[in-house]
């Protein structure tokens, strides 16, 4: 029977059916649900690792031990894991190993829109690209077969529209492969120069063998069309857009194995059509390869390298415009994401803005502290970059910025790659102040556990890293904890730590307001009679507060009674309700 499944859930089903028994990942939109779904199968051991590099190395260890293994991450996570990636290409695997990487063209929830297909070519690792949920399941399974047949890890490339779209799949039972024996093989698994020099030719021969495989595999299929004036080469979701726009009119070469690419198949297809067009999102990856083969091809001259494609953009490339619905004349205000009502980060960012500090930011929900009206963040680059960045910022300014600059980083992000930056602060002695926004969960990606929460991926009790002890062990002597709902305490803590003549860590601790176990207070009562419309409460950007001509109003369905707004109101117009 066919069921409707999210692409990521289908990929997890593929792992299950293929007999994968070890999963280690770090959450990241749009990849997270693969690992969360895999964890639902009792036959699969699944964990959140502190970061993607750890996850990939753990998955490699499991493969070495003889079990089919998996790690999943978002596109920027693969940058973190690039170090093991390039060398496990050399070692190959024992049992099959699959690495999912989920790109985010259109940047729905990311800081860049890098095209991860380049990693396949650069690391000489084959890459499969499903275009819907059924293929996500099928390709995940076939990735293991390819991995073991060619002795290589295999990349499974997802993208937002494949990962987060549901479509019909058919499931099959799991196969349970025997654990492969581990045999000590230094020349295969110890990558020091003497052995690595022997492995590199093996990798090149493997790519030749995979290229031959790419010629014959049905992963790369030609769909005939009635009109040979144009032929499309397409991968991933771009294939779906081509089919949606033109149906069976033009021939399509669909590449399911996007690296390494076939040669003869491309040449034969090119020769069969008058005009060859590559439809692909982001970079002209396939197009460049076609040019390397000397084929006359169009691609990025028709399609933007920026953002996502769609059926309309594909149709427009051949001059067909779709009639759009009417556009209203009234300007429609944008609706950007905002910090939730009751978010513990709000009071902290209000204080940082009030003190006019330079704030080196990081990746997580708290990146929203950059948005108006808080506008409290100066830079955001990547996971962990706040803690390392503030050190360079303060060193470069000869200490002049130390008293007016802070780094902000979440608990999960700190465990991911913030703590190595703190080691640098301690070791190389900058008097930097780092604020860890400890909301007891990995928030933005949808509430995943992490090493500071005391629970593992399956929700079972786990060792809890104690942030205070960790920071002290690194060598930071000034470590203090504040409640971000208490504005006065936050301001005192920030002022004192910035004034101190040594490095410091402030842990701003309060669980995410969306966590089920967090009990909210009664909504704040707005007293319009007392309100003077001074606008102080509007400076914190709380979605539950609005100012009307009659004075301040509270949306009781949103308000969690956190009381931060009341601390700003000099007229007592925002009072907490009696509890009980």
């Amino acid at each position, binding site marked *: 029977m066919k069921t409707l499944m999210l692409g990521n859930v289908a990929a997890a089903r593929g792992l299950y059916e293929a007999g994968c028994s070890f999963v280690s990942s770090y959450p990241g939109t749009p990849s997270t649900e693969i690992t969360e779904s895999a964890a639902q199968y009792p036959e699969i051991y699944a964990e959140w690792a502190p970061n993607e590099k750890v996850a990939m190395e753990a998955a490699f260890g499991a493969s070495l031990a003889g079990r089919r293994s998996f790690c999943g991450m978002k596109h920027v996570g693969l940058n973190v894991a690039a170090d093991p990636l390039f060398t496990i290409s050399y070692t190959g695997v024992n049992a099959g190993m699959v690495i999912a990487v989920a790109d985010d063209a259109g940047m729905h929830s990311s800081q860049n829109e890098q095209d991860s297909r380049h990693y396949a070519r650069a690391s000489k690792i084959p890459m499969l690209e499903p275009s819907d949920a059924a293929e996500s399941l099928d390709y995940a399974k076939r990735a293991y077969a390819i991995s073991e047949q060619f002795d290589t890890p295999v990349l499974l490339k997802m993208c937002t529209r494949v990962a987060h*779209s549901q*479509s019909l799949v058919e499931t099959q039972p799991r196969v349970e492969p025997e654990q492969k024996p581990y045999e000590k093989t230094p020349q295969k698994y110890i990558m020091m120069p003497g052995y690595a020099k022997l492995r590199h030719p093996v990798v090149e021969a493997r790519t030749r063998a995979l290229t031959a495989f790419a010629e014959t595999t049905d992963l790369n299929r030609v769909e005939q069309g009635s009109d040979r004036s144009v032929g499309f080469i397409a991968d991933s979701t771009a294939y779906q857009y081509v089919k949606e726009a033109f149906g069976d009119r033009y021939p399509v070469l669909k590449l399911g194995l996007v690296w390494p690419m076939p040669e003869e198949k491309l040449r034969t297809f090119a020769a069969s059509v008058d005009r060859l067009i590559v439809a692909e999102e982001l970079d002209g990856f396939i197009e460049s390869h076609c040019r390397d083969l000397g084929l006359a091809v169009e691609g990025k001259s028709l399609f933007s390298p920026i953002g996502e494609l769609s059926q*309309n953009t594909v149709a427009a490339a051949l001059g067909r415009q779709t009639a759009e619905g*009417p556009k*209203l004349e*009234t300007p429609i*205000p944008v609706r950007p994401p905002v910090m939730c009502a009751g978010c513990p980060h709000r009071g902290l960012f209000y204080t940082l803005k009030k003190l006019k500090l330079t704030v080196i930011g990081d990746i997580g929900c708290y990146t929203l502290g950059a948005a108006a009206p808080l506008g409290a963040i100066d830079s955001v680059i990547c996971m962990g970059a706040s803690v390392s960045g503030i050190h360079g910022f303060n060193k470069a300014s000869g200490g002049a910025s130390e008293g007016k600059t802070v780094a902000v980083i979440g608990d999960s992000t700190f465990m991911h790659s913030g703590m190595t930056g703190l080691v640098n602060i301690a070791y190389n002695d900058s008097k930097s102040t780092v604020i860890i926004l400890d909301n007891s969960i990995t928030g*933005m990606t949808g509430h995943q556990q992490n090493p500071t929460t005391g629970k593992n991926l399956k929700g079972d009790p786990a060792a809890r890293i104690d942030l205070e002890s960790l920071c002290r062990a690194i060598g930071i002597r000034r470590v203090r904890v504040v409640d971000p709902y208490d504005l006065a305490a936050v301001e005192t803590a920030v002022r004192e730590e910035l004034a101190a003549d040594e490095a410091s860590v402030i842990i701003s601790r309060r669980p995410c307001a969306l966590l089920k176990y967090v009990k909210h207070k009664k909504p704040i009562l707005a007293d319009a009679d007392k309100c003077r419309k001074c606008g102080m409460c509007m400076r914190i950007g709380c979605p539950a507060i609005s100012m009307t001509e009659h004075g301040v109003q509270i949306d009781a369905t949103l308000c969690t009674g956190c009381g931060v707004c009341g601390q700003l109101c000099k007229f007592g117009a925002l009072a907490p309700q009696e509890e009980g």
Partner: protein
Amino acid sequence: METKNIMIVGVGGQGSLLASKLLGRLLLTRGYDIKVSEVHGMSQRGGSVVTYVRFGSKVYSPIIDKGEADFIVSFELLEAARYTQYLRKGGKIVTNTQRINPMPVITGAARYPDDPVSEMRAAGIDVDAFDALSLAEQAGSPRAVNLVLMGHLSNSFDFTPEEWDAAIEQSVPAAYLALNRRAFALGRNA
């Protein structure tokens, strides 16, 4: 059958994922090819969210493009006005009249349009606007706006009440089944 396109739009956190889940369950029973596309991650934090539901004999693209939507079901008035270009000729907007101010309006940087429904109608759009929030509260919870909207949308399709009910039963937790059934019925009769 030609592909039908339903866009579900609203504000992150309003519960549009349940509406698309319900539609998915419903459509599955009729043997259609189906694609449902959701947005996860940052937009869910109070941003503008869009879910695409497409069904027919063969559906390729997971998204609905401008000029393609047969229905836009909106949880919030401004969001209905935001996506009018996605309507196809003869398409229809079903919208809750609830207004939720986005941050630029809250901070005074932008204005919430005075009367989006009249403007949409003036632009020639078929708009079915009603107070789904009050009906949800009447059913027992403001969170049930999604089922009120689905109930109202159900009048535009030929699925039987029994088929809808079976889909509701499969989509919501048992503890909330009665509430959701009430909300659906109120929306259907609105």
